[in-house]
């Protein structure tokens, strides 16, 4: 049993190369076809290299997480990498854009990916969901077995620990998210608040989506060309989101200002759309209720002097940018702390993996001792129940210390020699404890993932 991860991400490959791979893994069918190909890879003696496989594909990475057959001992890595490069690019020379991790490095990589330490934006929450989906798919199509189940569960636990024990995901690092977080510093609840969006740009869209997610139900959109605003709403928002959006004529936005609590400005205008003199009467009509203005346009569309008016809070793209910069720095610092949790998880997993190697030896040894006792005692004890009890008790007593020593040896890299000696001494024949090629048998593991999803 060896874990092998082959993949490419934003660090190792250009966007075009990542696109080429993700296009061939776009649908469930395509992914399953490729997984079947991986599982079908055989050596010259007809033995499969890969026992279990999970395919993860996101906008920034495509990875193939595999459990290799015990005979392969990681030797098949380069053959598989070569095959993958040929499959996606038709040329094995492209294999250098793929990275490859084996065993401990692979576990460390997967745990880091799950904990969002390897993401383009450290701490982003989507990757964990994507990893769970990939694993779920593998479970559904019975491409994952006990070994990868354990590996993925460990990865999910590690990600959870990192998220709860560090502040890696606490601070906003996108403009839209930061805008919503800032408004929470001014308003108690966003449910009753009115948002006015001036202009119909991409940043405005993302911010409005975030506001909807955070409970805002009254959003007005004003654009110089009303048709464009209608089109923008139609194309950018789902039906469930559209019910909270109202497109208004651009000439009417000023009338709406006194009722609006949050104004988002992202027009393409070259001058100020909102001037100091416009807001001064508005805040009086609002009876000094706070007004939050977010200027995400370049050049700026809101006069910065407005921030001097009491109870008016203006943030432009630069202010939010500085805030995000600080938060990215915090995330980087937190990532260092998170790596310690990853290392602990890797250590745990590797010791579990090592202990798997000795389980068949222990089972065989116990069986051998039991068989001998069975033969020797059958002449003396007739009652089967009593005989079994004595055999079990004696086996436990005889093998207690050797079992402890075997387990200890398994944690030691040089311990394999002692285990081999033991096998030779007692003529033991061990079986594969992970159940050979039996994939998808661990139904409970998949159910667990469905639940936590």
């Amino acid at each position, binding site marked *: 049993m060896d874990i092998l991860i082959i993949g490419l991400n934003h660090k190792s490959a250009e966007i075009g190369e990542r696109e080429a791979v993700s296009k061939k893994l776009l649908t469930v069918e395509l992914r399953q076809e490729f997984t079947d190909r991986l599982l079908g890879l055989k050596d010259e003696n007809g033995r499969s290299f890969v026992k279990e496989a999970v395919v993860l594909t996101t906008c920034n990475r495509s990875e193939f997480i595999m459990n290799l057959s015990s005979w392969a001992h990681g030797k098949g890595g380069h053959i598989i990498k070569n095959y993958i490069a040929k499959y996606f690019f038709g040329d094995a020379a492209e294999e250098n854009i793929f990275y490859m991790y084996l065993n401990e490095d692979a576990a460390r990589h997967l745990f880091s990916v799950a904990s969002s330490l390897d993401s383009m934006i450290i701490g982003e929450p989507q990757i964990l969901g994507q990893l769970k989906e990939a694993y779920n798919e593998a479970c559904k199509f019975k491409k994952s077995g006990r070994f990868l189940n354990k590996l993925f569960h460990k990865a999910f636990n590690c990600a959870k620990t990192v998220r*709860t*024990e560090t*502040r890696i995901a*606490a*601070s*906003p690092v996108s403009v839209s998210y930061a805008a919503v*977080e*800032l408004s*929470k*510093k*001014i*308003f*108690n609840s966003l449910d009753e608040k009115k948002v006015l969006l001036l202009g119909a740009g991409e940043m405005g869209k993302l911010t409005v989506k975030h506001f909807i997610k955070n409970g805002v139900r009254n959003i007005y959109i004003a654009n110089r060309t009303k048709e464009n605003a209608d089109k923008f709403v139609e194309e950018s928002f789902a039906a469930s989101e559209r019910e909270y959006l109202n497109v208004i004529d651009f000439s009417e936005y000023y009338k709406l200002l006194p009722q609006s609590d949050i104004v988002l400005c992202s027009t393409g205008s070259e001058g100020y759309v909102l001037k100091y003199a416009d807001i001064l009467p508005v805040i009086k009509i609002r*009876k*000094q*209720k*706070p007004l939050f203005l977010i200027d995400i346009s370049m050049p700026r569309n809101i006069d910065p002097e407005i*921030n001097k008016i*009491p*109870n008016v*809070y203006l*943030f432009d793209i630069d*202010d939010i940018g*500085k*805030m995000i*910069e*600080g*938060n990215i*720095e*915090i995330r980087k610092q937190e990532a260092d702390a998170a790596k310690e949790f990853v290392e602990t998880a890797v250590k745990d997993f590797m010791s579990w993996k090592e202990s798997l190697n000795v389980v068949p030896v222990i089972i065989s040894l116990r069986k051998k001792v039991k068989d001998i006792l069975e033969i020797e005692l059958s002449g003396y004890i007739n009652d089967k129940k009593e005989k079994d009890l004595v055999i079990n008790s004696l086996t436990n007593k005889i093998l207690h210390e050797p079992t402890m020593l075997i387990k200890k040896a398994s944690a030691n890299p040089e311990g394999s020699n002692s285990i081999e000696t033991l096998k030779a001494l007692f003529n033991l024949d061990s079986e594969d404890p992970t159940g050979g090629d039996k994939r998808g048998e661990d139904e409970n593991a998949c159910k667990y993932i469905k639940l936590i999803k």
Partner: protein
Amino acid sequence: MLKELYLIPVAIYIFSYIPFLFKEKKVYKVFLSLIYTGFAVQTSIFFIFLSVKGLTMPVHIDRFVFFNAWILMFIVVLFGIFYKADYILLYITPLVALNLLVGFFVPHVHIKPDMLNTDRTILLTHIILILIGDSLFALAFIVSLIYIFQERKIKNKKNLKILDTNSGRGYNLELLDNINYQCLKIGFPFITLGIVMGLYLSGSLFRTFIVVKPIEIMSLITWLIYAVLLHERVAKGLRGKRAAIFSVAGFLLILFSLSFSFYLFPSFHGFE
């Protein structure tokens, strides 16, 4: 002897800040549990006093200071639960602990007013009403200070990196302003009634309603500040930083008149 009991909640309140020395994530929960424990102890002591003595005059002056600390904590706990803003406890608890310490060190003397039984009841009610009103204004004061600092941080866009979901949770301006307003709305009638009773007692003791004692001038100025603030809030929608500054000024005047009347110049209040 019972005065020593004040030190138990004081010790718990001081101890509750120790977890902050450790940078653990659950520190805040531990802090809250300890604060609530301290408050439970404080409440038990309050009921012990009630069961021993009941609500009658004469009363030791330290009991009033203790009652002040208890009612302040009670109000903050109530507001904290109602507005889901238990972080106020973080700032108000030192005030409560200080109050309890003052209660412990203050001389164990009786307020023995030479007056009729009815007037004694009115005096007791006067003290209780003023203390409840003052406690509400104390909360408004703390909340206003938080508001002023938080508002400044947002306006100046400085230290923005700490404006994240964890460290800044709950410190939103709207909620702080709302708590300030509620304290004013509830506290003002208490203070008004308390002052009216004080005027009545003054009339009863000195045979005239308006004896120009410094406490009366100070009380009226304080009352006027809060009256103007309430009027401006209701009629003109005054809110935000200006309202917070008003609250701070009003409470500073209260502190000034209270310390003058009790500790520095008892004659200031008309005590001889």
